[in-house]
């Protein structure tokens, strides 16, 4: 830590003599970018002590940025119409000036690829490099979710494989067949991830290596399900006992929260190539899952890092005042948080919340007040705020991070309050507010609103009625009487049916009382059939 402190001291002593500005004016060239990168790296590595993947920074044009938008920001993606839809939407918004383009896109890969727009001024390039190539990069490499669930080293190879494989399938089986399959698999992407189980870390590279081998194997493989599916003599089967049921569930590893995984392994309707495509979609869903859970932290980390680095560079006399002003201006834009009654309010800005919490952690470490000592005894007054932040970045996701670190002071600063909405009532009710009694409530409620287990429906495969019609039973565990959106649900069930090959039914029951609230099914009733 001593070297970092020395660096900080140096930073605090003001511009050191003998060093010149890295750049003046707004134009950039590759030389300046390189020099600036080195200067940023000096602060990021020696002072902040970040731990990053090797960087690969690519300069792209705005058209290319639009292209990148349309495929989850990935440099490689298989072809699908939904990406085209995304593209025409973004293109229109951009051309009409409703939305600007991102200054950068960064990819969780090793080496860490970030795209910088050529239109950026040199000051913006500086900001963007500090933000993406160091902030996000450090987060990707160190956060436990990413470490556990994603394979940064293998992702590009895997996407390359996926793209080629799907193109090959289109050739062999027709574009329409592949498109339908992808439609169905995409509909289940949110339910195609492992949330809780500690499966072994995905090793995409190894998967790739074994793909062909596995395909051959699966052609021959003994399908558990088929064995239990009665043949023509269905009527001969004795009544199913509870043991049979338990045995079957055990064999199929039910209940299963990962619908795509279950279908890939057990669907009687899928051909081997279809299983492979479902697996591809599932792997990609899993790859993006950590990002969905860490928006606040990821952006907060990157914003904190760029803010610290650019300030340090300015203090060292590397950035002109003009460049620094431009950086601060765009920093402030990114952090804009309209209040709830502002027409521009679109929910809590993850950049603003993340940055505020991380700056707050630094404050608690270095200048704690009594309140902080009471709330955060582990870090209050701990001089090493860098270490405290790095621990937070490494070991939390949004939900747990907020639950752990949201301070009363920040709640007061943002004047957060909880609003309860019971859809059966004619009014909303204000819950906890920023007062002594409310801090815990606000914190709990805010943390919950970032918990994907709460905001996404909890759907599991619970049973397959093998004796009779092979209907797949899904179970929706409902909280607070929140139902599923009806029309979307019907469509998704139709997609599940396509992947499963037989009818599917979904039961919604309350989490506590287990009382059934609704039933939905793809089985056509007689009445439907008449219509």
């Amino acid at each position, binding site marked *: 830590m001593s070297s970092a402190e020395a660096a900080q001291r140096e930073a605090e002593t003001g511009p050191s003599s003998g060093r010149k500005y890295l750049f003046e004016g707004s134009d950039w060239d*590759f030389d300046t970018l390189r020099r600036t*990168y080195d200067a940023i*790296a000096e602060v990021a590595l020696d002072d902040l002590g970040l731990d990053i993947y090797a*960087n*690969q*920074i*690519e300069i*792209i*044009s705005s*058209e*290319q940025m639009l*292209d*990148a938008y349309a*495929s989850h920001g990935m440099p490689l993606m298989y*072809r699908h*119409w*939904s990406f*085209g*839809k995304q*593209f*025409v*939407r973004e*293109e229109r918004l951009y051309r009409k000036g409703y939305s600007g383009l991102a200054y950068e896109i960064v990819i969780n890969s090793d080496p860490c690829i970030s*795209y910088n727009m050529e239109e950026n001024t040199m000051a913006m390039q500086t900001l963007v490099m500090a933000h993406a190539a160091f902030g996000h990069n450090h987060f990707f490499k160190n956060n436990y979710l990413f470490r556990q669930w994603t394979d940064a080293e293998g992702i590009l190879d895997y996407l390359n494989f996926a793209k080629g494989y799907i193109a090959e399938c289109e050739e062999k089986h027709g574009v329409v067949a592949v*498109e339908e399959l992808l439609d169905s698999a995409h*509909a289940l992407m*949110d339910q195609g991830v492992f949330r809780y189980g500690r499966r072994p870390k995905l090793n995409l590279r190894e998967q790739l290596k074994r793909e062909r081998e596995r395909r051959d194997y699966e052609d021959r493989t003994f399908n558990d399900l088929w064995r239990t599916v009665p043949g023509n003599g269905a009527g001969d089967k004795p009544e199913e006992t509870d043991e049979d049921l338990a045995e079957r569930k055990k064999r199929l590893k039910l209940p299963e929260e990962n619908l795509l995984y279950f279908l890939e392994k057990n669907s009687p309707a899928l051909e081997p190539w279809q299983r492979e495509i479902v697996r591809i979609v599932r792997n990609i869903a899993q790859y993006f899952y950590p990002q969905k859970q860490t928006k606040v932290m990821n952006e907060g980390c990157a914003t904190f890092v760029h803010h610290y680095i650019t300030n340090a560079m300015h203090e060292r006399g590397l950035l002109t005042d003009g460049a620094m002003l431009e950086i601060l201006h765009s920093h402030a834009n990114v952090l804009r*948080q309209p209040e*709830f*009654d502002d027409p521009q*309010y*679109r929910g*809590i800005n993850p950049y603003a919340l993340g940055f505020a919490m991380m700056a707050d952690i630094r404050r608690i470490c270095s200048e704690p007040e009594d309140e902080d000592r009471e709330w955060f005894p582990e870090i209050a007054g701990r001089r090493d705020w860098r270490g405290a932040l790095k621990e937070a970045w490494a070991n939390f996701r949004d939900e747990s991070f907020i639950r752990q670190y949201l301070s009363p002071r920040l709640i007061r600063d943002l*004047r*957060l309050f*909880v*609003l*309860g*909405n019971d*859809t059966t009532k*004619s*009014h*909303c*009710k*204000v819950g906890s*507010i*920023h007062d002594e009694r409310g801090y815990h409530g*606000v914190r709990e*409620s805010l943390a919950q*609103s970032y918990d994907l287990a709460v905001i996404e*429906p909890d759907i599991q495969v619970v049973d397959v009625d093998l004796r009779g019609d092979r209907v797949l039973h899904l179970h929706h565990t409902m909280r607070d*009487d*929140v*139902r*599923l*959106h*009806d*029309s*979307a649900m019907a469509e*998704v069930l139709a997609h599940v049916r396509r992947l499963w090959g037989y009818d599917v039914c979904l039961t919604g029951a309350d989490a506590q009382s287990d009382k059934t609230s609704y039933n939905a099914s793809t089985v056509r009733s007689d009445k439907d059939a008449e219509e």
Partner: protein
Amino acid sequence: MFHLIDRRLNPKDKSLGNRQRFLRRARAQIKEAVNRTVSERKVADVAGGETVSIPSKGIAEPRLRHDANSGRREGVLPGNKEFLTGDKIPKPQGGGGQGNGKEGAAEGSGDDEFEFALSREEFLELFFEDLELPDLVKTDLNEIYAEKSRPAGFTTSGSPSAIDVRRTMRNGLGRRLALMRPRLRELEALEAEVAELESRNPASETDRDRLAVLRKQVEGIKRKRRAVPFIDPIDVRFRHRQPQPEPNTKAVMFCLMDVSGSMGEREKDLAKRFFILLYLFLQRRYEHIDIVFIRHTHEAQEVDEDTFFHSRETGGTVVSTALDEMLKIVRARYPNKEWNIYAAQASDGENYSGDSERCVTMLNNELMPLCQYYAYVEILDERETGLFMNPGTGAALWRNYQEVSGDWPNFAMKRVASPGDIYPVFRELFAKQDGKN
């Protein structure tokens, strides 16, 4: 540790494949939206406005998600001003009261229309789909080509006026360098020295020797310069032109309209839409299009577009005057060989009694052989729609034109009563011929 890569020169349009897939998938809806755009918007905007919105059904990507209008939920919001725990806030009426901005946003992407921009090409492609240019009857493939001479490289022979100086000089320079032609400067330097020596008086022995050597040299240089001329016939290059068949890409469109008092604003507006649709259609086929506006009452006159649509005239109605005027203009300015001639006529169907027969004769004998296509639109009063939609009935002009229509497949006629009729008319006029005959 760090790579900086310039990707700007990489191919763009990486999403082109996805975009095409999307357009293909939503084709039916997009086409419908395009048709709607055409009938709803002002025709002048049609070509420019390419934003279409289609129902998101069919291109929806359904996911299982919570219904914002059910159950109980909590949200945290910033910027509390006066709320205290336990306050009750009435929900806005009708909106279902979403306290949580986040879920409100997720809702927004629900059943709305999906709006996006088609490129002009994509838009018009759909707009004109399965329409074909009416019978390139006369100008079939052999005739559509006119000859035109175009630059076609260089030759070694030709007329002096076609000499390409640059190339000729370049060849000369190359030849002179290769054959080592002495430069004028060398010659001048030697001659100057000779002159200097000659002027010395008395000349010494060495001077005389030197003079002899120099004179010999000068002689040699002069000879060589004569042998290797500055420009040799083999240097000369001529621009070559070759007659090339050229597609006849010019079209002229005649807009004929009755502007007598019986044609009101509504009628003119309908006519205008009809003309513009034809224009748009031609624009797709021809590089260059001229439009001639001819208005007529009992006499006809060529006018500019503004006058055509906006000024009012009084007088009777003699349709044949417009045909006369058109014929005159065709003969004077638009030779049939170079121009594809289209005519669009709009009228309310009135004509001076006896003139209609004259029109038929003129069309049959003079105009129809010249025209690629002749479209006639009779604009009906909305109240007459029911009465006159039957093509068998009608005023003299209509009845007489029907004879022409029978004789000439490239003559089309139609009645319209409202803006909504125009597009179907347009389609029918230009629908593939096989659907008609």
